């Protein structure tokens, strides 16, 4: 679990991570935000979202994956995860952690406590 230092009841604050322009178009980048390794993606339609950088399947580095619409595709075995819910397209696979993300003045902020505590 990435959020060992924080209790979900008291979410950590948003942390400035990078400029939007530092994110490659249509791809992702990996950040270590405190205890959490987070992959931030920027779609061609400029939707920016943040999920765990570790694939729940076998730990694939999500930030190296491709995008299929708003889904991130793990580079190791191509499992897909939805940006909003973290849901996986493979039956029986748990969702990936999704982190709250905001853009203020062209800067990307994430909150390193995941929205959806993994079940």
């Amino acid at each position, binding site marked *: 679990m990435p959020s060992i230092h924080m209790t979900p009841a008291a979410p*950590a*604050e948003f*942390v*400035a*991570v*990078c400029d939007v*322009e*530092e*994110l*490659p*178009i*249509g*791809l992702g*980048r*990996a*950040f*270590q*935000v*405190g205890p959490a*390794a987070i992959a931030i993606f920027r779609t*061609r339609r400029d939707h920016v979202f943040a999920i765990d*950088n570790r694939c729940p399947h*076998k730990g*694939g*580095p999500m930030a*190296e*994956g*491709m*995008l*299929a*619409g708003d*889904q991130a*595709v793990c*580079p*190791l075995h*191509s499992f897909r995860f939805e940006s909003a819910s973290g849901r996986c397209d493979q039956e029986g696979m748990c969702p990936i952690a999704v982190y709250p993300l905001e853009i203020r003045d062209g800067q990307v902020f994430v909150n*390193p406590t995941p929205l959806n505590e993994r079940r």
Partner: protein
Amino acid sequence: MDDVNRQKLVILGNGMAGARVAEEILKRDPAGALFDITVIGAEPHGNYNRILLSNILNGSQTEEEITMNPIGWYAANGIQLLIGTPAIGINLAKRRVMLLDGRQIPYDKLIVATGSRPFVPPIPGIDLYGVYTFRTLEDCKSIARFARQSGVAAVIGGGLLGLEAAKGLLTHGPAVHVVEMAPHLMAVQVDSAGGTILGRTVAGLGVTAHCNKATVEILSDEGSRVRGLKFKDGSELACDMVVISAGIRPNAELAKEAGLVVERAIVVDDHLKTSDPRVYAVGECAQHAGKVYGLVAPIWDQCAALADHITGVKVAGAYSGSLIATKLKVMGVNVGSMGERDAQPMDEVVRYEEAERGIYKKLIIRDGRLAGAILVGDTEAYDELLGKLRSGAALPARRAELLFGAAPAADFSLAGLPDDKQVCDCNGVCKGKIVEAIQAGKTTVHSVGKATRAGTGCGSCRKMIAGLIEAVAGELKADPAEAYYVPAIPMDKPALAAEVKKRGLRAVSAVMEALATREDEKSKMGLAILLRSIWGREYIDERDCRFVNDRLHGNIQKDGTFSVIPRIYGGVTTADELMKIATVARKYNVPTVKLTGGQRIDLLGIKKEDLPAVWSDLGMTCGYAYTKAFRTCKTCVGSDWCRFGTNDSTALGIAIEKKFQGLETPAKVKMAVSGCPRNCAEATTKDVGIIATEGGEWELFVGGACGVSVRKGDVLCRVKSQDEAIRMVARFMQYYQEHARYLERTYDFVPRIGLERLRAILIEDAEGLCAGLDERVHASLEAAVDPWVEDTRAGAKYPGQFEGLRRVALPVLA
């Protein structure tokens, strides 16, 4: 439902016959008014298609794909399913079936469908670790698991199943031997000449057959592991695993102990009724008119007749026995056999043999009528012949017409077939049913299969289904998705290319925007290759349509690091080059340095951040070992050193690798050049292979493979010089480039186009394409750039390309 009027029907055995008979009964009684059905099965599954088990063994299909009635199907149809516990007794007087777990299941009517089990010869060593039979899903899984670590596997029994097992084993790596007691393979279906031809084809696939060998013992090492086979003639064969496929025995013991009449199997009448009027038997455990059937087609007939009788709803009529006729695909070879196998002294025999292509056909004609036929390698004439055998019609005076089928005109003869003509023998689907489905709008082979099951068994009738679609619907919508170049855009390659050119779409995102029906990453990757080949330098290269390997020009490993494989042309290196590699390996603490199967050196475990530095320190060309492109050209030492070498294979290999480096292709392309037919560079199993022949010529093979599939390449042509060889390879590559689907390896492409057609196009220039092909391949090769150079010269191509995890500190919390 009024339970009082419903009879308890128990079906004992949940295999092909058991589930089928339940379906046939439901068809006649859809509301379930007549029976309260319980199915008992020893196997812990729903019902799967046993005849597709070899696909499980070779990994080409999944358990799910071969399942016909999943567990949920039973409940959904009001059937109680008791699986995982075998029955251990039948009490005819009390009308009960006893289960191993103590339960007793009462019945008013009982259908025994227990099938058969493999016959295991009573020889010493049968219980050793590594000895398997081949009958159930579990068997296949165990065999596959064991085979992966086996070096040499032996199959006892060279019949249909034994050969299927052998083929499945090959895919897992071991060398495979088939041991047959009879003088030739598949003795039940074909005669000795047919068996010999089949043997040759099988040998070509890499299986060694030993006929006339009776196994008397399975030998073990000191422990309990298999070490070999011992034969009656005293000889031995070393192996570490054994699959027994020596015939089957009906599961008729329960019936016999219960007191039913059992001979070779459970004796039944024309309604499939046993000697007890409440009990029926069907499938491989049943014996009708002295015959026990071991194929599904007759079993389907039996199930229909049984359902007719038990429900009183006549659809099929009584069972009068089945003609034993089979059309099978064994190890990729079509085999058909019907009626009698061996001729009587007075019979007329018509025989045609073409050993080179593995074709053998024989007809046995008695009093001017067909009495039997064997077809190996080409079964086009099967249906025609079966019709003649069934009807007993007089035969044409020109017997050759029978051997080769009537002239092509396939579709109108198809349209003329009677509706009750069975098209799919595996699932017993007749023409009428298929036509109905087509008229209801199913115009792809796939959708017809979904609606009727036709074509979902061995697949040998798919061509006929396609023909029917053409005849009925006017045109065959070849499974549209199958023809699409990429999944997200419903167009085949030529149409897509034309559209792209017409609209001037130079970037993948533009094509997706304009033409795609959905977003998917595979499509982006495929489009990138297509666009680059269309636009060359004008192509707008968007990096987000590349898979990580193509963004970082190395292969991603399971820990997120990358492998770096530089080109070592033709597998020939120098001390200086090796020192360069060694220096890099030291400098970057490369954890693993490995010789690859492609005759070069792999540096594994390189961090993303280090890639550009590693590339420039190496100063070598990118080996493209990670992508859909021309990979390597392996060579052997050839005439420079080897005492058998007839030509300079190394020089040609190096020249080829220099020429084609950097060429992206629909799927990866591997080449090799051997200096003589001993073929140490394994050229016959490469996408493009070249072998030097005595007399200074080169023989070109295309479409070979030895990965997931093993296929021997086809001989495209012979040429006299290295230059000519390179020119032909280039032409072939460009044609492949322009006509193959994304991810279609040459081992699928070459058979799809057909060798004859390829020769006509590429050698005889029958379509006038050669000049254009030669020109375009040249242009693509000119445009190729080394990605290692391209992406280090001007720095990263996009933010973060060569950066690892970026650390962001958390603000200090108050």
